[in-house]
């Protein structure tokens, strides 16, 4: 439990006789609360960003009224609206699946945040197989989406769910394969350890700047593309493609349940960007961090800032891509996944393995 | 034909020539059609149209008219054969329009107008046929010109015409249970539809 700053704080402030299991439970609870709060705020900010970026890309202003400055509280108002809306469950819908699906989707998105290394000492859990955990948890979303599509008892939703099933399972492979080069490079599945290994050169020894940059950069692009598809972002937003399937798997959802799907999308976007940041873009490392002493309080603060900025930049690129490209067709999505990305990922994996083996032999 | 330039509404002379040619060709192949040409040239002397309107109002006939020349097919039963001939022999490959027309509530007949287009020779041809209002059957040309499919469906629900041999004679624009034929001159606007009264 050494990465968890909450348990550190708790053990310092609680009376000495406090039982260990109580401490663990309390830490877990507080950690979960932090994650939920963080994700909610993050999603609000990302939704606002998406609207503003979309607006300006489209030569318009985006939200300008709510809250004064550039409509900063527009998403807050929307969130309140969604919370107070009537929660409609269709008579023909499967009540269990319909209710369970948003929770599962949201839960899996939140769980991803447990292993993200935000800053030195700020990580809720450092798992040895951190990346495995991430991939496993991320694919739970797919199950939630399929449940939503099936449970809605709507043909459009069902189509969305089936597309999600096909698409997500296909893109898991290039996604996982494109993670192998950095894993080989750092020799670890732990995101924390990978981040720590990139702190050299005054905080600039990021994987894409390392000697293996020629495999790092293509694998980064592959990961990014596969992550777009995995997160149902345009041009791979087939499961909810609004001009074909009305709104796909969440056609029948309203109110809070819809908000969960909405939130999950942005949470998952951030999580994918965070993984890319931790493995390729140096995580919390930033140039100039060597001037700070190891115990300094500025290090976690500035580190977290650097991490958030890098991840949010990638989120913005995702938004930018969404408002530029048309949508692929489902068979083209599959073709792209199996005939283009998977072979490319395999090739890069082999190249990375050869490079790392050659470097190790020196 | 001395006018150098066509009038601003399009080539009327080409059209008139085309109809005359088509008339000769169709008559030669043994069908009974008549060539109807307007009594009034398209550029009528000033004031003449007002006189005509007055005369027509007093006499109440439709004998004097202006406009495009057309072919009148008195026997609607020959329609399919004539259409085949128009397409195959005369090269009018496109049926650009098909429409019904009810001239007045007292008229005994409904008119059906067929417009054909020859893309290579840039000609138009108008064929008009009539059906008695108490009989209303005429052959469908949807097999000769697929374009007639929807037009015939529309004409049939609007005028009550029955196109024999139409592949899919459902209502197109109106609800399936609509009563009456709205474009007939004797159509009475319904008080309500499906229990919903007209506001």
């Amino acid at each position, binding site marked *: 439990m050494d990465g968890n700053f909450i348990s550190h704080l708790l053990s310092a402030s609680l009376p000495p006789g406090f039982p260990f299991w109580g401490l663990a439970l309390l830490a877990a609870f507080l950690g979960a609360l932090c994650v939920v709060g963080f994700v909610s705020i993050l999603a609000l900010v990302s939704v606002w960003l998406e609207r503003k970026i979309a607006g300006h890309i489209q030569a318009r202003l985006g939200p300008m009224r709510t809250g004064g400055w550039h409509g900063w509280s527009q998403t807050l108002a929307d969130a309140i609206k969604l919370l107070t809306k009537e929660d409609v469950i269709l008579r023909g819908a499967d009540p269990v699946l319909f209710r369970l699906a948003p929770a599962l989707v949201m839960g899996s998105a939140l769980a991803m945040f447990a292993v993200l290394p935000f800053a030195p000492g700020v990580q809720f859990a450092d798992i040895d197989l951190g990346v495995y955990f991430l991939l496993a948890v991320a694919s739970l979303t797919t199950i939630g989406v399929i449940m939503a599509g099936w449970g809605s008892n709507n043909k459009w939703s069902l189509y969305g769910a089936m597309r999600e099933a096909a698409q997500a399972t296909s893109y898991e492979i290039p996604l996982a394969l494109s993670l192998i080069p950095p894993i080989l490079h750092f020799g670890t599945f732990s995101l924390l350890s990978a981040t720590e290994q990139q702190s050299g050169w005054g905080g600039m020894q990021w994987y894409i700047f390392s000697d293996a940059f020629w495999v790092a950069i293509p694998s980064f692009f592959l990961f990014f593309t596969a992550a777009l598809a995995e997160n149902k972002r345009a041009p791979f937003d087939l499961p909810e493609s609004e001009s074909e399937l009305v709104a796909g798997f969440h056609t029948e959802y309203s109110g809070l349940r819809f908000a969960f799907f909405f939130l999950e999308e942005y949470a998952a976007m951030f999580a994918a960007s965070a993984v890319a940041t931790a493995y390729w873009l140096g995580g919390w490392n930033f140039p100039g961090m060597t001037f700070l002493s190891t115990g300094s309080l500025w290090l976690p603060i500035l580190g977290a800032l650097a991490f958030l900025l890098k991840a949010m930049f990638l989120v913005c690129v995702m938004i930018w891509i969404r408002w530029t490209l048309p949508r692929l067709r489902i068979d083209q999505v599959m073709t792209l996944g199996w005939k283009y990305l998977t072979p490319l990922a395999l090739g890069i994996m082999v190249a990375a393995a050869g490079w790392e083996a050659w470097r190790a032999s020196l | 034909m001395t006018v150098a330039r066509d009038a601003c509404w399009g080539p009327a002379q080409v059209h008139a020539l085309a109809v005359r040619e088509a008339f000769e060709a169709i008559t030669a192949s043994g069908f009974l059609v008549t060539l109807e040409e307007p009594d009034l040239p398209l550029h009528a002397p000033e004031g003449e149209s007002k006189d005509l309107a007055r005369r027509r109002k007093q006499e109440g006939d439709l004998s004097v008219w202006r406009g495009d020349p057309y072919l009148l097919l008195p026997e609607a039963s020959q329609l399919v054969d004539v259409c085949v001939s128009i397409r195959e022999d005369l090269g009018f490959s496109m049926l*650009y329009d098909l429409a019904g027309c009810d001239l007045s509530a007292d008229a005994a007949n409904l008119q059906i107008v067929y417009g054909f287009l020859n893309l290579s020779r840039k000609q138009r041809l108008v064929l008009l046929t009539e059906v008695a209002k108490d009989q209303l059957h005429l052959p469908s040309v949807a097999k000769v010109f697929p374009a007639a499919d929807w037009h015939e469906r529309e004409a049939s629900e609007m005028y009550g015409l029955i196109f024999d041999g139409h592949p899919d004679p459902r209502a197109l624009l109106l609800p399936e249970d609509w009563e009456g034929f709205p474009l007939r001159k004797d159509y009475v606007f319904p008080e309500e539809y499906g229990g919903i009264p007209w506001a």
Partner: protein
Amino acid sequence: MGLTPSFAQAPGSEVEVAVPTQDCSINMGPQHPATHGVMRLLLKADGEVLTGAQAHLGYLHRCAEKIGENVDWTQYLPYTDRYDYLSAMNNNLGYSLAVEKLMGLEVPERAQWMRVLLAELNRIASHLFAVGTYGLDLGAFTPLFYTLREREEILDLFQEICGARLTCTFIRPGGLFNDAPEGWLEKVESFLCRFEERWKEYDALLLRNKIFIERTAGIGTLSGNDAVTWGVTGPLLRASGVDWDLRRDQPYLVYDQLDFEVPLGVGRQGEVGDCWDRTEVRMSEMLASLSMIRQCLDKMPDGAIQHPDAGPVLRPAPGRAYVGVENPRGELGHWLVSDGTKHPVRVRMRSPSFCNLSVVEHLLPGAMLGDAAAILGSIDIVVGETDR
């Protein structure tokens, strides 16, 4: 190969289907984002592949033809704005020409040039909307906003000349309601210069995009022969390689004095007559219209804009006249029957969208569900016009 695989695993090939499957019927519309209004398509689908389609029209049927029999000749003019509400000027023009033909009037020279200018401006506006919403159908939002940006400028010009943006009621039997205000023609000129630059943006952003090409090339192919037999006109017909444009082949107004190109589909990305060709033809037509407007501005004569004989109440001679004009969506024909009174006996419009849409039932089977939006969008219907 491309990104388009050969998904057609025909029944009877070596794969034996053990699981009995059932076709799924899907109701697309009347409220569906891709139907461009209230139209309903009943689709049959085997998985993602469509096996059948049936169109149900009439949700926007407003009895325009019946209304025509109950108002007088001038009063019908505002109704013409409303069947193809994206190209009101062209509709006004078609109706006015037909009435003028019945009356035997020829409008003054300046009115003819102004009419061509306005009709071509409206064609650009309409094509801009068509290309933009086509991007939207394929999931690209942004091109729509770019095309709307330029369309707004055209609508501003319309607002300045006639007071309304969409439902213009400006071209009337006998000429125009009003002459252009001071400086209006210069504004048109400066718009054209801006527009040429912007046109390149849509071209690069949408038409040359690889995903757009993959989504449209080889999809919904309509052969030239089929297009003619189905009575398809306008950009659809030309995209299928049939060289037919009323403005050149049956010229009305002063189109015979203009020098312009008629763009045809050549199958640059896929086959002749596919969705990409249709979009490309629309894009090229915008440039053709642009050059036509330039020529109109150069040759615009002075003079009256209204024929002295056409008063507020018109009484055409008894007769039957048809005038077809080239609308942005194809041939808009008005078939007018007059009995010499001030009310028409029959107002029939041959609306291009209606005839173009009738091919949809034959283009959709065999395509995929995602292509339904692509094909329907490429036909570019305006439901106000299909239903009238």
